[in-house]
Each structure stands twice: as structure tokens, then as C-alpha cells.
């Protein structure tokens, strides 16, 4: 079942079309992430769900009920805002109790629920503090508590962790996942940070700069099988090659000018669409084996010259040049002392399996 | 020296420094006077509508004496300001007759030197040696005003009009009246209406005058000294209590307002010229006074303000179509009394305040 469904939604600001004919279904009970570059309109989608903006055409369904013209305060949807938007004149308790008070819930029940939800976000000690006395992470938790205490059908999170430092961010991510698991509420999480999205989401959508959805799927699907170069580049790092797809004795091969032919695995439906046309090949840097000596058992092979190296701790990033093209390769730092250390200027051999390369139309 | 005392010393020093700076700033005018006495200029304090700016201008052009003109709107304002400044600011002012006694008592005006006045013989003797200045020692009568009813004849085209204060205090028809905002005048006129005389009010008289005015208040549109003339011309009030000067001004715009002197008799106000006791510029002041009384300047002033000159000869020359000059200069003059307060000042004030507190 879909928690939220967009049908042919278009939104304009003035003459500028932010979202054009959007169709999107967000499954119920899942942690759904909406990933896109800054300014692509993902926040607008969130605001449309929340009811802060009105669509210019199309319909929005919440639990299969048309909510296109339902005002904000009557939608069972709550938002955790990017800058928290906590009420400065109320303390932590009153902030969290706000929605319940509005609904006219009796006071003992409010108290019970608020304390419960504050415990969930580990803020039971800050109940009567003022907002300005809290740290950024604590404010974030108050904003979260304030939203979930209302038991919304859908919780919208608008880049909620953007203002936090890295460690806090990771900690909050884990807590968010646990919270979602516990509550089983649909979370819609908007972010421009792919690591966040990959970490939290059960299901995710990638938006491009024009406000179009490029791909919807599980994080793994998205990462392993991007449908477009945009997705491939935006989610993780990749090496892209332009070339032409050909069939050769039942094997598929991808010809890149100046590099040679590479074997790829591809289903026949895609083959018919792509054959003979210009296409793109994407190989993730960590899928490429780098070695100074020649190796056996790999489908594809090129020689390259090392142009630079960046040490990342858990891995090393090699910047390589093959026939004037740049290729990036990650290698896990498995041993304390690697075999023959690769240094700048060395010539190395690169290998990858044909299953690890993805062919895309655009 | 211990630390605390040191601190206090400095704070005190800084405080004193600023106090001295402030004081120096406030007393600048005194310093200015020390260095150069004011040149050929005089400062006069006059009714806002009684001096024609053109006359002053002519005087300045002719003599080269600079005249600073300041205005007041009531005799009480004049007295209060003079008292606060001990009269030092002005050389000449223009009190109404009922204020003259107080000014003399307070030592704010000095005796005039009639020898320096070249028009004394022209003044109407009826205005000389009045009760408030028995030997005409202190003030020179300048202009006078007679009070009556300003009437809109259109309203009374089909209604009967009686030349009586009744039209003002107990209107026979349903119309609104305009009053002046000077309790001295109103109470005096009420007394003339009820008792045909102006004696100090005893308890009984005071009560009946209070009743009369309270009842009248329902019909009163305004108690004001502002622009009485426009009340008549705008049609808001068909009957107003007004000095003739107000009618004079009204008739500059429209020709129909008429001025009626009630048969019960009426009151008048005489404006006088007085010289400040502090003035040190006698020559300049007398030059100005003589200039003000010159026929052409007096005529200009009267033309502008509508007040009557105390020179009967000049009065007869003037074109005053709304006023029966023979009537006011003839036997009727006997029933025209000088306005005076019929109660003590405080009593009159509280009386007026009570009337207006409802």
C-alpha cells in the first residue's frame, strides 16, 4: 500500500516550473529517502505533502485519500524542519505538548505521552529547560519528539541533520532508524547527502536538477544498478565511459574509443534499446582490481599510469590515467604492508569482472 | 587613598564636569547678554490676532528697529509666562483691561510717560481713567471689542428673532449656539441676562447662573476662542456669542452674518498697551507705540482684526456696515459694561471645570 502518491503533480513559482508532471509512490511503513542536489525541488515535494504549498495541477493522495485541497492542519502529517522551528517562548515540555494541546487531549494523558516520547529521544532530563539552553542535537531531538508525539501517518524530515556535526549526525541516523523500526510510521527523509540516504532508507528516490525523479528503488539497487549517469555519479563515485554497445557471438561487448572493447552483462530488453547507439558504461572504483603484476581470471583489463594517490584510512584512492582518460580506483587497505607498494608514475594493470560494469542509456 | 574613595572621587569629578557643561549650555543667553547688549530691537508679546504683521513690517522698514513678535492666546497665559520669566523677556504687551490690575499689583508694568505720546489727545475720553487704572498711569487703551450675538439671518427668515440674550441662553427653537471659552465673559453676560447688572455673585445668583449654563450646555456646539466666525459661516450655529471682531472677519468671506446688540445691554473688552517694568528700551518702545497709533496703521490693524479703535474720530471714518456706530457711541454705550470676573479666580475656574466635566 502507498502512504503517499503523487499523480501528475506540477508546481510553479511564478513562471518557473519547479516540478513537472511528477508521479511518485511512497510505500507505507517504510523509511523513504528523497535524495537530490540542493535546489532540485525535493523540499518542495515535502512541502506539498505537508500542505505548505498548493499544487498547480495534479493530485496528492495520503493513504489513498485525496488530500490535494486539505489544509495543513488537517493532514495527519508532521514535519521535522531543517532549522527545527521550535517555539522560543515555550519550554521543552510545552513544545512537545503543543500538538496534543491543540487536539484537546486531557492533561494527564499529555504528560504521560510527552514524557514517554521524550524518553524515546533521550531528553527526559531536559523536560523543563528553555529551548535556547539546549544544544543543536538536543534541539533536533525536541523537534523530532514534537512531531512524533502526534502519531502522524507520515513523518516528514527536511534535511534534519544538516546543522549537526559528523559524529552527532551518525549517532542520530542510527537513532532515527531505530525509531522508525519501532514506530512503523512512514518516514520521508529529504537530504542532499547520499551517505545519509543510503544509510537510513528502505527505499529511496533520486531527483535530478530539473526536479524529475530519475530512479526509485532500494539503496542497493540504486547503487549497484543506476539507470542513468546522473544517478551513478550522484550516488557514490563512478568511472564513466562513453561508447557503443555491440553483440558479438552471443556476448555483449562495449566499445570505448581509444580503450578497447569490454565485456558486459546486460538483459536482452535493454540490449535491443541500446544496440548500436551511443551509451555509457559505469564502473564503481572499488570494483576495479589494481595490481602491478598481470593477473588471470578477469574479463576486462587495461593498463594505466598512476597520477596520484589519496590515503583515506580504510582505503586508498588511486588517480589513474589511461590514454588521457582519468580513472579512479579504490583499494581496501587490508594489510599493514601491501605487496609491492604502488607509487606515483608506476604503470599498473586494472581488472574488473563484466558483471560489475553497468551500461546506461544516458 | 583607599580604592573606594578614589573611585567615588572620580565618579564625582566626572559628574561635576557634565553638570557644569549642562549648566553652561542652559545659561548661554546670559553669557550672550554680557558680551553684547541686544541691538536696536524690541520684543513684544501680543494677542495672536491683534497686531497686523504688515504694520510691524512697515515700522521695521521705516525705523530700522527689529521687532520680535510673540503671541499669546489668553490673558492668563500672558500673566503666567510673565511671572515665570519675571517679565524680563518682553518690552511691551497688550493685556485686556481685567488683567491690568493684576499686572500692576505684581509690578510687571511700569508707568507711562504721556509726554512721549503724540496721540493722547485723540483718545476717546470715555476710555480714559477707567476703574482698573484710575488715573491712566499705567496703560494706554488701544482697541476695544463689543460683545453681541452673531446671527445667521437665513435661519431666522421665517422665525421670530428677538434682540435678547435669550436667543443664546434659552433658544426658543431647536438650534445650536456657539459660546466663547472665557468664563469671565460668559458668567458676566449670564448675569446681565438674568439680573441686568454685574455684581459679585452671591450663593443664590451663582446657583441660578449655574443652572442656566448647565441647561444651555445641551444646545452648545462649542466653547471656543478659535474661529468663532466659521461657526456662523459654516452654518453649524445660527446664533453665536461673539465680539464684533469675529463678525467682522466672517463678513470678509460672506456678507450675510449680522451682529445684534441685545436690549439687556452687553459687555466690552478693552485691550491696552503696557510697557514691561523690566524694559530698558523706552525710546524704541515709545517709537513703536506712536507708530501703532498712527491713523493709517491703526486703521490697518482694525481692518485686519475687526477690533474698534479707541479714537472715536477714526471709528466714525471706518466702514463697518454690520455695526450701528451711532448706537454704540450713543446712549447704548451706557449699558455696555467692562467685563470683569464675578467670582474669585479659583471659584470661577472650578465653576467652569464643573460645567465641562459632564
Amino acid at each position, binding site marked *: 500500500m502507498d502512504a503517499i502518491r503523487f499523480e501528475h503533480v506540477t508546481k510553479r513559482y511564478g513562471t518557473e516550473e519547479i516540478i513537472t508532471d511528477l508521479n511518485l509512490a511512497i510505500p507505507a511503513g517504510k523509511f523513504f529517502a528523497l535524495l537530490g542536489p540542493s535546489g532540485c525541488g525535493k523540499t518542495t515535494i515535502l512541502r506539498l505533502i505537508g500542505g505548505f504549498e498548493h499544487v498547480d495541477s495534479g493530485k496528492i493522495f495520503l493513504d489513498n485519500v485525496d488530500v490535494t485541497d486539505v489544509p495543513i492542519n488537517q493532514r495527519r502529517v508532521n514535519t521535522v524542519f531543517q532549522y527545527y522551528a521550535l517555539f522560543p517562548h515555550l519550554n521543552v515540555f510545552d513544545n512537545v505538548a503543543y500538538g496534543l494541546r491543540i487536539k484537546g487531549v486531557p492533561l494527564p494523558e499529555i504528560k504521560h505521552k510527552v514524557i514517554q516520547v521524550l524518553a524515546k529521544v533521550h531528553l527526559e532530563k531536559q523536560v523543563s529547560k528553555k529551548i535556547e539552553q539546549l544544544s543543536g542535537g538536543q534541539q533536533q531531538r525536541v523537534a523530532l519528539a514534537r512531531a512524533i508525539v502526534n502519531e502522524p501517518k507520515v513523518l516528514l524530515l527536511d534535511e534534519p541533520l544538516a546543522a549537526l556535526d559528523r559524529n552527532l549526525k551518525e549517532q542520530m541516523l542510527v537513532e532515527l532508524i531505530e525509531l522508525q523500526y519501532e514506530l512503523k510510521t512512514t518516514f520521508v527523509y529529504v537530504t542532499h547527502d547520499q551517505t545519509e540516504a543510503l544509510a537510513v532508507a528502505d527505499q529511496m528516490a533520486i531527483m535530478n536538477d530539473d526536479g524529475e525523479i530519475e530512479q526509485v528503488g532500494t539503496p542497493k539497487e540504486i547503487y549497484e544498478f543506476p539507470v542513468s549517469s546522473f544517478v551513478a555519479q550522484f550516488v557514490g563515485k563512478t568511472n564513466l565511459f562513453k561508447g557503443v554497445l555491440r553483440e558479438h557471438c552471443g556476448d555483449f561487448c562495449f566499445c570505448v574509443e581509444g580503450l578497447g572493447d569490454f565485456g558486459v552483462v546486460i538483459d536482452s530488453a535493454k540490449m535491443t534499446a541500446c544496440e548500436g547507439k551511443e551509451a555509457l558504461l559505469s564502473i564503481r572504483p572499488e570494483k576495479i582490481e589494481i595490481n602491478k603484476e598481470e593477473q588471470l581470471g578477469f574479463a576486462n583489463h587495461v593498463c594505466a599510469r598512476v597520477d596520484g594517490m589519496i590515503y583515506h584510512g580504510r582505503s586508498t584512492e588511486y588517480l589513474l590515467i589511461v590514454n588521457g582518460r582519468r580513472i579512479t580506483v579504490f583499494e581496501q587497505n587490508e594489510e599493514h604492508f601491501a605487496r609491492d607498494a604502488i607509487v606515483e608514475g608506476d604503470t599498473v594493470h586494472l581488472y574488473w569482472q563484466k558483471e560489475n560494469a553497468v551500461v546506461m542509456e544516458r | 587613598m583607599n580604592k573606594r574613595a578614589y573611585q567615588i572621587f572620580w565618579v564625582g569629578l566626572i559628574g561635576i564636569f557634565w553638570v557644569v557643561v549642562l549648566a553652561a549650555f542652559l545659561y548661554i543667553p546670559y553669557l550672550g547678554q554680557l558680551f553684547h547688549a541686544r541691538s536696536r530691537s524690541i520684543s513684544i508679546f501680543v494677542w495672536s490676532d491683534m497686531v497686523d504683521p504688515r504694520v510691524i513690517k512697515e515700522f521695521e522698514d521705516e525705523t530700522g528697529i527689529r521687532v520680535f513678535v510673540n503671541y499669546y492666546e489668553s490673558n492668563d497665559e500672558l500673566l503666567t509666562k510673565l511671572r515665570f520669566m519675571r517679565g524680563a523677556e518682553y518690552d511691551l504687551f497688550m493685556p485686556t483691561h481685567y488683567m491690568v490690575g493684576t499686572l500692576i499689583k505684581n509690578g510687571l508694568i511700569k508707568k507711562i510717560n504721556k509726554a512721549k505720546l503724540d496721540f493722547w489727545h485723540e483718545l476717546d475720553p470715555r476710555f480714559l481713567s477707567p476703574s482698573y487704572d484710575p488715573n491712566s498711569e499705567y496703560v494706554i487703551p488701544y482697541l476695544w471689542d463689543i460683545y453681541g450675538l452673531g446671527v445667521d439671518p437665513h435661519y431666522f427668515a421665517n422665525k421670530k428673532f428677538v434682540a435678547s440674550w435669550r436667543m443664546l441662553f434659552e433658544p426658543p427653537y431647536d438650534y445650536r449656539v456657539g459660546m466663547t471659552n472665557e468664563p469671565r465673559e460668559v458668567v458676566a453676560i449670564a448675569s446681565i441676562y438674568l439680573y441686568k447688572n454685574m455684581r459679585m455673585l452671591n450663593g443664590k445668583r451663582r446657583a441660578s447662573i449655574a443652572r442656566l449654563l448647565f441647561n444651555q450646555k445641551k444646545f452648545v456646539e462649542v466653547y471656543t476662542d478659535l474661529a468663532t466666525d*466659521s461657526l456662523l459661516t459654516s452654518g453649524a450655529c445660527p446664533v453665536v456669542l461673539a465680539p464684533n471682531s469675529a463678525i467682522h472677519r466672517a463678513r470678509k*468671506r460672506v456678507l450675510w452674518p449680522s451682529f445684534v446688540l441685545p436690549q439687556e445691554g452687553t459687555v466690552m473688552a478693552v485691550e491696552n498697551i503696557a510697557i514691561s517694568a523690566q524694559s530698558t528700551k523706552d525710546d524704541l518702545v515709545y517709537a513703536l507705540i506712536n507708530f501703532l497709533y498712527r491713523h493709517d496703521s491703526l486703521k490697518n490693524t482694525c481692518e485686519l482684526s475687526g477690533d474698534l479703535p479707541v479714537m472715536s474720530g477714526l471709528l466714525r471714518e471706518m466702514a463697518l456696515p454690520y455695526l450701528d456706530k451711532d448706537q454704540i457711541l450713543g446712549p447704548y454705550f451706557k449699558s455696555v459694561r467692562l467685563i470683569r470676573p464675578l467670582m474669585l479666580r479659583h471659584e470661577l475656574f472650578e465653576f467652569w471645570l464643573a460645567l465641562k466635566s459632564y
Partner: protein
Amino acid sequence: MRFLRRLRLPLFVSGVYALLYLPIVVLIIFSFNGSTDSHTWGGWTLRWFAELFRTPEIWVVVKHSLIVAFSAMALSLVFGVMIVCSLKERLDRFASLFYIPILVPEIILAVGFLYLFSFLKVPLGLQTLIVAHTLLGLAFSVPLLHARLAEMNAYSVEASLDLGATKWQTFLYVVLPFLRPALVSVGSLAWILSFDDFLIAFFCAGSSSQTLPLYIYSRVHVGVTPVINALSTFTLLVSCSLVILYSVLRVRLKEII
């Protein structure tokens, strides 16, 4: 229906503005009134403006008013900046006390000034008006400048000192520019309070220091003459053009810098 509901607020606001400007528009129209009687309409004319410029006494009192208004404005700004910058957050507790002079009815202040000046035998003149109006100006300048300064990022002063500026230079190039918007609004408020003040001037102005409101009051007694209307139109025109000039200049300056 929804369209109408959307228009409700803008319509209400334009109604309020219409009410605010009703007397002013009437005033402007009547300053071109050809009739001598200020209460009836007698066709368009410019003669009141001609008369306005031929009446020297008006310009004397205008000059007085301008002197008083500018001095009071300057004093209240200078004193305000001085106290705000020296006490900083120590002023928190007192800042709102400075509002008292404008919350107290002006008439009470005026009477108090009269007592004070007559007790100290201070000669009444422009300088008494200036100090009196400075009190009113301080009522705006101290709390508002204080609030503005509190918004200032404390690090910018430290940054300036770190970059080698002296305290005085920091004040001149960092603090003062930051205060500028507040200085402009406070300054214009203080200026207007002083320029418009009738009651205090009524009690505290000396003989040679009549101000414009006093002059107007004395003229109103005879019935507002169209010359006064013309004067009001003229001041409005001048202030409008000053405001426009200021905003244009500000834009220009921004472009240049």
C-alpha cells in the same frame, strides 16, 4: 469566494492607509484652495504658496524649529551612542526605564520643565527647548540603540582588534556602521518628536524662540489660514524628496562600494 477571502486583508490594509492619509490629502488639496474661507472650495490657486514665501516671520520660526530639532536629534544620538557603547550589557536592566519620558503624558513633562527652569532661573530660549527635546529623543535612542547593539556579533569587534585596529578605529569602522540603520530610524524619530512638539514648546520656549508648532497654534486661533496648509504641503514635499533622495543615494552608494 476564495478570491474574495484572499483580498480581505489587502483591502483592510488599504482602508487603514486611506484613513491615515485622508486628512493629509484634504490638507494638500485645501492648500490649493482659491477661496479665502478655508472651509469652502474656491477653485485651484498657487497664491498661498506665493504668500508663504513672502511671509518672513514663518521662516524665522521654521529656522528656530530646525535648529532645535537638529540639535536635539544630534544630542540624543550622541548621548545614546555614548551610553550604549560604554555600558553595553550592563545597561540591560535600565534600558527600558528610558522609555518613561514618552510613556508619561507630555503635559506632565512640560509642567515639570517649567518648574525646573523657573526654579533654577534658567532663561527660556532655544537651548531650554533643545535640552527638553533631548530627553524625549533619549527615550528612543537609548533602548533602540541598545537593542541593536545587543544583536551585534561580539566576535566582529574582536576580529577588528585582532586585525590591528585600535578601539577607536573599531568603533568608527565596525560598531558605528553596524548601528547605522538604528541611528537613522532613531534620528528621524527624535527629529520628528522635536519638530512636532507643541506642549513642551508652549511651556518652555522663550520670547525670541518661537517654534513652528507655536506659531501654527497662534494662527489656528484665527482659523487655519491656507498659508499654513501651504506650509504643510511644502514640508511634506521636502520630507518626501529627502526620503527619496536618501534611498536613491543609499542605492548609489551601495553600487559604488
